[in-house]
């Protein structure tokens, strides 16, 4: 009787679980697994670098809320995943990484392509499995799947030595593995009641929305509660993805490169309801200043986030949707309070800033106008990804998210090169939806080899390169914080991105004006065709302002030249 190999049973089990595709790159120690896929219906998306595969899986997980499996070989294949694992961990994105490993007999002997990837990845994964016994391979995969989406999502790694993959085993020899699932506590009604009392008695309450709102599916609850209490909503960078930017109460993201109206909301708030956020230093700038004179209510599914960066007046451990639903149930019986004057004042800041941006002269392409044109052309439900750099910060400031869940960016780790593979992953997840990658020339060059997948698998993504031939965000810091000592940022010789596009069989356009930009993107969307647009931006003028220097309080914001607003609220009665 021929017995199946452990990998054959795993492939069969994956199909049973509904897995129909994997991302990855083959290599020596993972050949058995790929061989097992030979007779399955599981499709392999062959990336051109492991980092591309894992960022694509990260984005796929954010779109589908289910983990994609990334399969790579040992040694360099595995270590090339490290950045992607850390990125997924920081942004709470579910995925499963399977790494091949040298046979157990060679462990610790510095065998060819041996790396202790389990030891390497432990601090940057939600969990890891070192599978030494073939009968543990399926239980580890099933457990990894469960863990990756249990509570706060995250990446899980399974290291599979070649001998464990190849060993023949009986179905009956496979054991069950218990996952000690993390129980999300039921919200404590007394804490919720107290939190609500603080909100209802506040002069200027605001809500700070983080990425946890998306994972909880709590967008409607956020908007309902904000509308009931009449409180403005401010977001973090990941939180920008969780609420519609055109809602009248949404002030947009606060922080280092945040919206002034959002900064003003935080500065003048006396009670902050923070939902699903870790209080990143990028959002609040200075923890001590944030605490000063403000009461903070913090809701998070992750107990370790409560009090980690900012000690709250009330900390509620629980799922955002459940906690906010309870709050809504209570507030309807309570006296509603409005804060219309405060909101009107915040919106006046937004209007002043928008008016300034519409009038300020800018030779050539202005980043904010480029985004406006792209937004007009891309359908509201289109998915947008970004790289990391000034284009990302401009997007934080000026890209309107209309449909929650459609803005995918590397927020926590800030990984340059995220944009292209993330766009590919999003397109694989939702082939029917247009996908736009807003990228920078620096970010683009870090993972551009994965463009090969566009034609190979028919993934028509649109890439807009904000091409300033420099690492602009660092250059910006050198100008502002390092006395203009500019070093190691400018690309004096960049490749011709039109030729790069041509090499990968993609149409390339270098527009000379906004009409050409609009027409080329509209055509690509209409025809469902891939496109690379190279938008030349003057690096001497591409400073992302407003800007709150690292560690400074939001009031110390540097505003754009020729623009100033007072971020201190002078009291109700404004505009009457």
């Amino acid at each position, binding site marked *: 009787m021929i017995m199946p190999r452990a990998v054959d049973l795993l492939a069969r089990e994956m199909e049973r679980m509904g897995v129909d595709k994997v991302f990855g790159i083959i290599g020596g120690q993972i050949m058995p697994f790929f061989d097992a896929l030979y007779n399955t219906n599981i499709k392999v998306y062959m990336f051109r670098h492991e980092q591309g595969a894992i960022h694509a899986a990260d984005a796929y997980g954010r779109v589908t809320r289910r983990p994609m499996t990334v399969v790579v070989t040992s040694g360099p294949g595995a270590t090339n995943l490290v950045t992607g694992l850390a990125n997924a961990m920081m942004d709470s994105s579910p995925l499963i990484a399977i790494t091949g490993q040298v046979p157990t007999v060679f462990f610790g002997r510095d065998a060819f392509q041996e790396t202790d990837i389990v030891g390497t990845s432990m601090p940057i994964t939600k969990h890891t499995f*070192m599978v030494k016994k073939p009968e543990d391979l399926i239980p580890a995969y099933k457990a990894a799947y469960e863990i990756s989406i249990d509570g706060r999502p995250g990446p899980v790694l399974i290291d599979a030595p070649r001998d464990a993959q190849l060993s023949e085993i009986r179905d009956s020899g496979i054991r069950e593995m218990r996952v000690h699932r993390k129980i999300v506590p039921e919200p404590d009604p007394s804490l919720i009641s107290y939190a609500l009392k603080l909100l209802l008695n506040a002069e200027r309450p605001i809500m700070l929305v983080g990425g946890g709102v998306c994972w909880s599916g709590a967008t409607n609850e956020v908007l309902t509660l904000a509308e009931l209490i009449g409180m403005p909503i401010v977001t973090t960078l990941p939180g920008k993805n969780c609420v519609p930017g055109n809602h009248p109460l949404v002030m947009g993201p606060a922080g280092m490169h945040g919206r002034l109206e959002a900064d003003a909301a935080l500065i003048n708030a006396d009670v902050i309801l923070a939902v699903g956020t870790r209080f990143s230093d990028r959002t609040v700038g200075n923890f001590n200043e944030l605490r000063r004179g403000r009461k903070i209510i913090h809701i998070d599914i992750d107990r*370790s986030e409560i009090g980690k960066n900012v000690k709250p007046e009330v900390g509620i451990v629980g799922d955002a949707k459940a906690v906010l639903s309870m709050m809504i149930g209570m507030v309807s019986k309570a006296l509603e309070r409005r804060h219309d004057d405060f909101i009107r004042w915040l919106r006046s800041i937004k209007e002043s800033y928008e008016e300034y941006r519409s009038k300020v002269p800018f030779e050539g392409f202005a980043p904010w106008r480029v985004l406006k044109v792209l937004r007009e052309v891309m359908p509201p439900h289109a998915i947008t990804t970004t790289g990391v750099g000034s284009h990302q910060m401009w997007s934080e400031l000026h890209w309107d998210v209309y449909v929650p869940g459609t803005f995918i960016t590397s927020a926590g780790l800030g990984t340059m090169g995220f944009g292209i593979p993330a766009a590919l992953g999003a397109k694989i997840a939702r082939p029917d939806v247009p996908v736009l990658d807003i990228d920078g020339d620096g970010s683009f060059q870090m993972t551009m080899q994965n463009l090969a997948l566009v034609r190979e698998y028919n993934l028509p993504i649109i890439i807009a390169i904000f091409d300033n031939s420099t690492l602009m965000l660092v250059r910006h810091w050198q100008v502002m914080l390092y006395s203009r000592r500019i070093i190691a940022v400018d690309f004096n010789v960049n490749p011709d991105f039109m030729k790069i596009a041509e090499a990968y069989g993609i149409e390339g356009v270098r527009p000379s004006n906004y009409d050409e930009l609009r027409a080329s993107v509209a055509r690509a969307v209409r025809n469902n065709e891939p496109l690379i647009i190279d938008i030349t931006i003057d690096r001497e003028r591409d400073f992302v302002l407003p800007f709150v220097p690292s560690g400074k309080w939001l009031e110390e914001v540097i505003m754009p030249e020729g623009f100033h607003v007072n971020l201190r609220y002078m009291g109700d009665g404004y505009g009457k």
Partner: protein
Amino acid sequence: MVMGNDFSIELTMSNEMNPLDAVVRAMNIIRRGKITINHIIIDMSDSVIRISMAVRGEEDEVRWVCNKLDKLYDTVNVKYMPIELQVNMVVMSNGKNIQR
């Protein structure tokens, strides 16, 4: 009598698969905490892993470390408590009484 910032942490972990990996995962968290480890015992002789630590630090930081440890999927139970100074404490070791 309670010493200012001294705490004991008792961590129980599953040893279902590669128990040393569970221990390393715990250590990775502890080394990032703003606490000082004064004493640590790792007992892997039972059906579970028991890690006992005496640590020094602000209670908020000790709590943060414990909350992080609690997130691990190997963790069965974690708790911390202030260390009370025992006057004339007797420590049992190797069957002999050692007077302190």
